[in-house]
């Protein structure tokens, strides 16, 4: 009955996904502001909501770093963010399976665009601008954490991820950086890979750029991927009355990315235009001045 199995390579475990309310904004009905997150399982292309998660807990880290906990009911978690800003969600599920303590984790960042006026007054006045989703601190209540670092980009848009960006990750166990844990990636298009860490422990890969042949010129194209890491530990203990002799951590992180701006922009032309304008303008000025100059400066004046 329990459908939680050890995730194998190319087959993701669980992840969190923000469910989009359909047709919410058509009728002019005011939004409640509530966010609903579902627990999903399967491959990125084909997945289902897991309705029967027992012992599943979601931690919500609010913008002011306070942490609240919620039980998962019917494969869903709902919460109403108060402030404008980013909320980091962490899902945790523990179960002993065949003598192994399976700890299934997932994390998701939700950016809330609205907030109550009274609560967010101060924040609104302040105008917090550094709300980075990258390189956050390891989340204390969880022993194992997967953290997205600032991506390396070759284009101009900073807000989101795009194909072609190099995304680095870091893995932590109890606050310590893990240096030899690989990462598995699965894309919506079916591309999967296993990424080995570099010497300093960063696991990074370039989001493949050939996954959207039809949408070369479409900026709004968006694609999902799930990044996942697993970590095994020889530890024994008792959880929920069952003894275990090993711990298996797995953490997933769903991300979405767009088509690379590099597909529809030209830097060379940009520079050429700017330089061309400069040349034309400065030559124009030069000749204008030469024509206007009446005093025979060379002979009688000297700027030295």
């Amino acid at each position: 009955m329990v459908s939680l199995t050890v995730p194998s390579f190319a087959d993701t475990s669980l992840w969190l996904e923000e469910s989009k309310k359909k047709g919410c904004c058509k009728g002019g009905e005011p939004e409640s502001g509530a966010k609903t997150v579902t627990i999903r399982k399967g491959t990125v292309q084909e997945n289902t909501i897991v309705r029967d998660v027992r012992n599943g807990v979601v931690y919500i880290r609010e913008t002011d770093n306070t942490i609240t906990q919620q039980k998962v009911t019917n494969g869903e978690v709902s919460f109403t963010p108060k402030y404008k800003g980013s909320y980091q969600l962490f899902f945790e599920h523990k179960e002993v399976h065949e003598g192994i303590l399976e700890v299934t984790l997932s994390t998701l960042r939700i950016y809330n665009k609205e907030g109550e006026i009274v609560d967010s007054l101060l924040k609104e006045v302040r105008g917090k601008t550094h709300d980075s989703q990258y390189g956050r601190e390891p989340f204390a209540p969880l022993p194992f954490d997967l953290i997205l670092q600032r991506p390396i980009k070759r284009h101009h848009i900073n807000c989101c991820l795009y194909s072609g960006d190099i995304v680095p990750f870091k893995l932590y166990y109890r606050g310590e950086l893990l240096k030899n844990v690989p990462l598995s990636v699965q894309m919506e298009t079916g591309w999967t890979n296993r990424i080995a860490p570099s010497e300093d422990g960063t696991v990074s890969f370039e989001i493949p750029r050939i996954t959207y042949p039809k949408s070369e010129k479409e900026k709004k194209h968006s694609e999902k991927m799930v990044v996942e890491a697993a970590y095994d530990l020889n530890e024994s203990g008792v959880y929920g009355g069952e003894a275990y002799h090993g711990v298996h951590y797995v953490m997933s992180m769903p991300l979405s990315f767009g088509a690379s701006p590099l597909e529809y922009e030209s830097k060379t032309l940009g520079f050429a235009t700017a330089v061309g304008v400069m040349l034309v303008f400065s030559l124009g000025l030069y000749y204008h001045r030469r024509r206007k100059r009446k005093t025979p400066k060379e002979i009688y004046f000297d700027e030295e």
Partner: protein
Amino acid sequence: METEHTIETPHQRQNRHKAMEAISVLNALKEDFKFPIQSMGYFYDRFEKVYCHHEPLHEGKAKIGTMCIQIPSEIIYALDAVPIRLCNGFSTDDEIGSDLLPQKSCPLVKATVGWFASDNFFDKPDITFSPTTCDQKTKAGAIIESFGHTVIDVGFPRTKESEESRHYWRESVKSFAVKLSKFQGKKLTRSNLERAIKKVGYVQSLYHKLTEFRKNKAVPILGVDMFLVTNAFFFDRIDEWIGAVEKLVSELERRANDGVNVAGKASPRIIYTGSPPIFPNYKIPLIIEQSDAIIVADETCSSNRMFNDMAAVDEWNLYDMIDSVSDKYLKGCTCPIFTQNDDRIRRIIQLVRSYSGDGVIYQAFAGCQVYEMEQRSVLAAMEREGIPILYIESDYSPSQHGQLTTRVEAFVESLKNRKRKKK
């Protein structure tokens, strides 16, 4: 016994007359007033040397005649020449000039023309630049040229508010600089102009220091002495002038600390405006100060207007320095030749306020049309401000002395009464 009789040449006769004019004024300055200033001795000597003994000061240097204050002395100094301001106050020269100009001309212009006509200089200008300021000076250039002197006109606009004027004047100054540069066979450079601007700026700062003392309740220097100091700058060696004024400043400092007052306790403080008193035509200033009043400030082109406004340079490069010098001589100028003269009226009011003046004496040369024409508007403005003003017309002849004294004394007396009533 035979005595040798030499017949006096016209030059000698003129010089004798001029020396008499000069020495009588100098003697009056030296002897008629209490608490003489020691360091004024330099200026008395200098005037005596130049105007009584006719000793040249600038032998071996190119001397550039200027017909008005608008010819930038900074550029002249930068090109290693000496500016000689040709505005003249001698009655002797006025008489010579009278034969060459219309009867009702300005005595200053007549005297200047007369000076050239007699060709009797202590430092004869090698070339003269004449800005087209008032009609009489503008036309005088050509007359002087007819005596065989080189006179170059420098176009000067008669409005200063417009953009065109500003550009026109900047171009005029540039072309003046080119002509002078050609004449001198020397380039105008960034460093020599910068040095000259700063030097002239220092000269102006010294003048401002002198005037500061005149704001005191006890005024340590006479108005006529101040006119003498500023007049000396017309022809003096700049470095020696600076040295002498520096000494004067420190002496005045001491006098101010000691509370020396060259005037009486109740002497009315006069702001002097109008046609410029130029040595030795100190007729009106002398009458004023001999009538127990004291000139604490003036608004004339032989003194205040020459030194008041300083050039501000934003970028110390030639292009900006030349423009800056040009603007200084146009924008700050309160000469009545301009169409609008609010600035002059505002300047007089400001002088009355900051020097706590009791009254204004407005003197115009008979024949100085622009000052005569402005008289009404200035009088009206002073009336509005509640400032007593006396308007006097005079010329270089010594004849009206008695009548002028009566008028000035009456005015001074009324100011004294007014002061008493206020108390």
